């Protein structure tokens, strides 16, 4: 099922950041989001993930199909790597965490408290969480931050494997992952800054 976005306008803190955005993300395809800092890439991903409502426009085919990975990985420092993953696996109803541990080479670390991991290892754990969600659309916000070159390769392989199984991915990143995905530059969709009139605009 295709994720389709029609004439979407999104806000951050009551101020429109992007408007008139339309695209379609078909199964098996990746879409790379580009754009300068502050243009609204994170806000777009949060809106599509359902964390905030759009100002206007339509999002179809997103409901309960999105695995969202933000800047922070949601890792509990006192739980071990395996326990962190097993928690998310049972929330999403996945049985095995072993493929995810293998994909990001976390097998040797699985018994360690996650608080002792390095920044890059934490990031790998955060990305492994995406694998255990078993959801078809990945929405990744700067997924390669603090990853070394071989870990970036692991991540690119994981995305390729996911696309090969008919999944799709929307990735906000500035590095070249070697994926044959389309690039969507959101710069031209920048909204003209104007405050929303209604009094509860700050909540939108």
């Amino acid at each position, binding site marked *: 099922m295709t994720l389709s976005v029609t004439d979407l306008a999104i806000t951050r803190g009551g101020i429109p950041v992007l408007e008139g955005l339309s695209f379609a993300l078909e199964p098996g395809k990746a879409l790379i989001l580009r754009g300068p800092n502050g243009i609204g890439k994170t806000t777009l991903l949060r809106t599509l993930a359902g964390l905030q409502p759009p100002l206007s426009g339509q999002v179809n085919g997103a409901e309960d199909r999105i*695995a969202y990975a933000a800047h922070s990985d*949601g*890792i509990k420092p*006192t*739980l071990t790597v395996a326990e962190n993953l097993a928690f998310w696996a049972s*929330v*999403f109803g996945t049985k095995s965490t072993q493929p995810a541990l293998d994909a990001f080479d976390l097998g040797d670390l699985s018994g360690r408290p996650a608080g002792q991991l390095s920044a890059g290892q934490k990031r790998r754990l955060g990305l492994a969480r995406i694998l255990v969600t078993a959801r078809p659309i990945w929405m990744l916000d700067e997924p390669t931050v603090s990853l070394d070159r071989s870990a970036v390769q692991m991540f690119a392989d994981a995305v390729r494997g996911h696309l090969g199984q008919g999944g799709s991915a929307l990735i906000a990143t500035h590095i070249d992952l070697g994926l044959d995905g389309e690039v969507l530059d959101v710069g031209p969709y920048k909204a003209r800054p104007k405050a929303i009139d209604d009094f509860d605009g700050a909540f939108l």
Partner: protein
Amino acid sequence: MIALLLRDLKLAFRAGGGFGLGLAFFLIVTVLVPFSVGPQSSLLSTIAPGVLWLGALLACLLSLDRLLALDWEDGSLDLLATSPLPLEAAVTIKALAHWLTTGLPLVLAAPVLGVLLHLPAQGYVWLFLSLLIGTPAMSVIGTFGAALTVGLKRGGLLLSLLVLPLYVPTLIFGAEVARRGATGMDVQTPLLMLAGITAATIALLPFASAAVLRINLR
């Protein structure tokens, strides 16, 4: 849902999880009361039900600011909100985990601390029962307060100011059950009111907490 409950319990019992802090606070407050009001046993036994209820309430309040704030800080609240688990269920489970790690130990410790305050013998059952019925409401109301203040840095004091007035009905009827029980009076009316308040908060507040959390996560 079970996974979330088990995770929260595990986190509470591990290092820095905060299990036992509320209990230790309750113990210290109760021990300090005879120092401040004097050791007359007649006075202490009169004020014991009220002091124990107030101590339990404050101990419960103490642990609220980490109820949702930790999950918000490390991003797991965002991830939970996009998971198949409804947010209403998540906040209910969080409240349950809070009650199991904070409320229940207070309920179990209260009769022991009653000895320190010369609580009359007939009052122990009612003290225990009133706290057992009343503390779940404190956890659920506290979760609502935590949801209201979740995005704020150092929101602990504001959380207390928001939550304490909401605790008033539970405190009035809970302490009334314990007081009447200790003096041998009929407890039926305040006990029913206390149970009613708890049942209503458990039924309604998780929806309010989830709605507030959705707004705060935007």
